[in-house]
């Protein structure tokens, strides 16, 4: 392979060095951009003496003003009182129901069963001949499922009330 005129150690070395320099140049370029932009964080700028004493004094003044304004809105006594009452209260289950949780699903099933029962009772009592009376499901028309729902719903509703 080395009989090709362009294929010499010198050419290979030059190309390798040129390639390495190209790669490294991207880092140098990025560093150069940062240097030209003279980008510094606030702390770095202060440390490097970028600000005059007058500017530092003004910045400190601004900071003090902001801090005191924020402090005036903050009542330590109120926080301590809240913390004390919070610590004194014993942990108890929250009355909030997590959407999609077991309790929530039980409640939904219970409410649905209750609504169905109310609707059936209303239809039965209704004198309107157009509203068909709700009859009990025939044994072959999946009674187990609807009964299960009712049973679960009733139990869930009871459990929720006891809470």
């Amino acid at each position, binding site marked *: 392979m080395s009989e090709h005129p362009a*294929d010499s150690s010198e050419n290979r070395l030059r190309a390798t060095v040129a*390639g390495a320099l190209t790669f490294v140049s*991207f880092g140098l370029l990025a560093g150069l951009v940062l240097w030209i932009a003279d980008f510094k964080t606030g702390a770095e700028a202060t440390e490097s003496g970028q600000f005059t004493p007058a500017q530092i004094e003004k910045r400190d003044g601004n900071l003090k003003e902001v801090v005191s304004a924020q402090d005036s809105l903050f009542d330590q006594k109120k926080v301590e009182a809240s913390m004390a009452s919070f610590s004194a209260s014993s942990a108890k289950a929250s009355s909030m129901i997590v959407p999609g949780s077991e309790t929530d699903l039980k409640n939904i099933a219970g409410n649905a069963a209750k609504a169905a029962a109310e609707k059936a009772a209303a239809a039965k009592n209704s004198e309107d001949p157009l509203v068909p009376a709700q009859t009990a499901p025939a044994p072959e028309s999946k009674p187990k499922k609807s009964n299960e729902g009712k049973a679960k719903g009733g139990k869930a509703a009871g459990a929720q009330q006891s809470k």
Partner: protein
Amino acid sequence: MSDLNATSEDILERAEIDKSVRFPVMLFFTSAAVWLFVATALGFLSSLKLAVPTMFQDMPIFGYGRLFPAHMNALVYGWAMQAGMGVILWIMVRLTRVGLGRLQSTCVIVAGHVWNFAVGLGTFGIIFGAGRSLPWLDFPAWLWPLLGASYLLITIWVIPMYRVRRAGGVYVSELFIIGAAVWFPWIFITANVFIGNGAAPVMAAGTNAWFISNLIYFWFAPVSLAVAYYIVPKIAGRPIYSYPLAKMAFWALAILAGWTGFQRFMGGPFPAWMPAISGAASVFILIAVIATATNLLMTLRGRSRLWEFSPSLRFTMFGMFLLAMYGVLAGLNAYFPVGKYLQFSHFLVGLDTLAVYGFFSMTIFGAMYFIVPRITGCEWVSGGMIRWHFWLSAYGILTVVLVMLVGGIAQGGNMADYATRFGLSVENSQGYVIGRILAWLLIGISNLWFVYQMGLMFIGRGRKTEGPTLIHVEPGSVATSEAAAGLTSEEVV
């Protein structure tokens, strides 16, 4: 196939060249295959975690905020970049006819191990809470110099190869490879230097988006195109339809890709011209995509049956189809009336996956099915396994894209509606998240086939009998995919 027309000197020379890169390329391919499996498992777990948030809830290492970045970084740096580096080295030595010397080969192998070590350390770092929360740059900050240095020691050799190339002209694949080799250090160093030097968080996010977009357009796309412009003419047995069109695609990518990235934050706290220019560049990149699609389809005109039989061509052309799909979807997402709904939704995850596991990985699989038998001296065990790998991967990636696109539209629509609560957008996208789990399961199974076959090739247990392994054909029953497709050989490429 053109190999039939090669003289005995050509065959000997190719064998010599293949031998010079055998160990480095196999190191990258086998490590990449292992990382692919790890990344796929993490992808599946992270999708599962999204659907069942309470799973392992007391263990922070199984949090979605750690699993998903670990998955993406393992996929990008462990699988994609390693496999890509192996392909880059092999195609360059073949096209330039300049092999790697022993010293160079050793250097590449050492750097390859360092790369693997760094990726392993970075992935563990993310899982144990030392990640940076910067998509695709999540590895701890102190690792990037190590990754950068090992990348330099691996790919630097393509530059002297190109300089002292023995083949007279310049192949389009060489252009794309040289471009990718040089562009990656630019975007990687620039992003890390700017983000790592106390950049304002808003600009860090913008630079991060610029890095992701450019890693796709400046590395994944050129490497895929280099593979396509190498494999398609080789298998079709005829030259590329139009060289000027191929060069136009290269220059369109070179000029436009660097401007993309900020469209991901359209409407964000940036000067308006930044997302506007990025969006326009993303749309104009379609020029390169259309030019490439036309060129490859015209090259295959009248010989498209080959893709039924050749694993390499099948994966490569499917990868190019996904590249076209990516170009169109990314262009659409850069259009404000569409992008404003989709920019913070599942759609973006689907789009990024389409780039890494879609067009890039499919093309790289095509290259691997072509390269590995040539450097190991044995053939893939079974065409049936390759077919399974293809179809499961294809269904997997198309499912990811579809569910993330439709789920993204549903989620984005809910988020844009101020009258509804945010939780509704999460609830409505749950079904699509389950689709994503199934998709990663399919991809995981497909990769099991691939890793198994790659393992056999690595330990020299591939098929030793005559003839290539083709799809739909008994191993060794025909000499080429052309013969299997009933086509006549045309000319040497």
